[in-house]
């Protein structure tokens, strides 16, 4: 093991770290915004609303993220509609394809997580909201969604970690994220242990930071459930 390989290339790793962090953060933020209406649509009894959303989440949860990102990056050029329009300025760029596929992927998982949490709403809360004369949208906003987010938090924390780990496939489509940095270092110096163990350490630090942040958030959001100090 030769630590100088890592210290000489630390700048590359830090750039990769930044790329990983912003890609994952942007995908999660956009994905969450999309997932909320999708989750509400998934709870609809109308098959014309529920069906297409179910097909979407089923496809993106049942196929590997690596295939999804490849389909978008290598496959989008197959379509004249994309090639001949302004869309090509976006789809010809690796970062956009990575972000696009991550958003579609995490929105599908998150929609199902939130849907589960919505369905677990205690019946009494909904009856109480109706008895107070709330409309459906007011009830969603004030009663159903806030308590659903609370219930969804542990599962969503796992999804954040899955997205972080899944983002490593961005390195395959030429993006120099953390994994990409490690692959560059390995191919330049043929030092697989140093190259990949360094990336692994960064990922582990990020994972622990997420676990810690979720735990902090849980403590806040579940404060009302904690036994009162004697």
């Amino acid at each position, binding site marked *: 093991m030769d630590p100088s390989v890592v210290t000489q290339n630390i700048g590359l790793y830090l750039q990769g770290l930044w790329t990983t962090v912003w890609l994952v953060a942007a995908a999660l933020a956009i994905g969450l915004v999309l997932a909320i209406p999708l989750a509400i649509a998934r709870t609809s009894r109308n098959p014309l609303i529920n069906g297409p959303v179910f097909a979407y989440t089923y496809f993106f949860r049942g196929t590997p993220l690596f295939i999804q990102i490849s*389909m978008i990056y290598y496959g989008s050029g197959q*379509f004249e509609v994309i090639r001949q329009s302004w869309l090509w300025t976006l789809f010809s760029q690796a970062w956009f394809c990575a972000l696009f596929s991550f958003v579609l992927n995490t929105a599908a998982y998150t929609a199902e997580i939130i849907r589960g949490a919505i369905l677990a709403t205690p019946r009494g809360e909904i009856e109480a909201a109706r008895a107070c004369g709330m409309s459906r949208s007011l009830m969603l906003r004030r009663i159903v969604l806030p308590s659903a987010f609370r219930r969804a938090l542990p599962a969503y924390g796992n999804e954040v970690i899955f997205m972080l*780990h899944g983002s490593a496939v961005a390195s395959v489509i030429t993006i120099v994220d953390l994994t990409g940095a490690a692959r560059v270092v390995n191919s330049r110096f043929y030092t697989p242990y140093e190259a990949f163990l360094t990336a692994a350490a960064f990922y582990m630090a990020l994972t622990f930071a997420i676990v810690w942040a979720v735990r902090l958030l849980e403590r806040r959001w579940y404060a009302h459930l904690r036994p009162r100090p004697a």
Partner: protein
Amino acid sequence: MLDLQGFGAFILQGTWVNLTAGLLSLVVAIALGILGALAKLSRNPVARGVAMVYTTLVRGVPDLVLMLLIFFGGQLLVNQVAPALGHEDYVDVDPFTAGVLTLGFIYGAYMSETFRGAILAVPAGQLEAGRAFGMRPREVFARILLPQMLRHALPGFGNNWLVLLKGTALLSIIGLNDMVFKANQAGGSTHKPFTFLFVVALIYLAMTTVSILALRWAERHADRPYRRAPA
């Protein structure tokens, strides 16, 4: 749109590679999972420590990074060790073996957690009763613990299998000639990359759907003795 231009059988050959790699990895993962779970619950602090480090490290790092580490690192290691054993030529690590071992190693960590939880879900009184009957530890494990923990392990086990199965798509990155690799070849020579990758996506969807149905059946089956009689 789904005109495969004669590449259909070519892709299906690759499907077989992914499926066997997935199933063999599952066997490795189950073995490591049982070992890991027993180590985590053992009274031996060394075993507990090793299992803790194993599951924490593996679950904190992306599977692709571990795969690259084990494939390239393993290649280097084999070629450092081989000359010492009197082997002169350069040894090429086979991506199938490396992939199966890596996936098994990774999902063994997830299985450890699933099995640990399932073991803890079996009431301690059951195990005590077994011991009180004079059963040996192996009998308590085989007759009381295993049949009852299976029911608790199934949901987590199923999730792990689905993630593992999808993880086999990454094996093409370390050079395995699987269906993803073949789809990229077919897509390159026909200039229809989307079509072939979409077919691969549909094949994965079919495999996950069959898995989900089989797991649902297994869960219902394992739950039978516990279901309440219809009123």
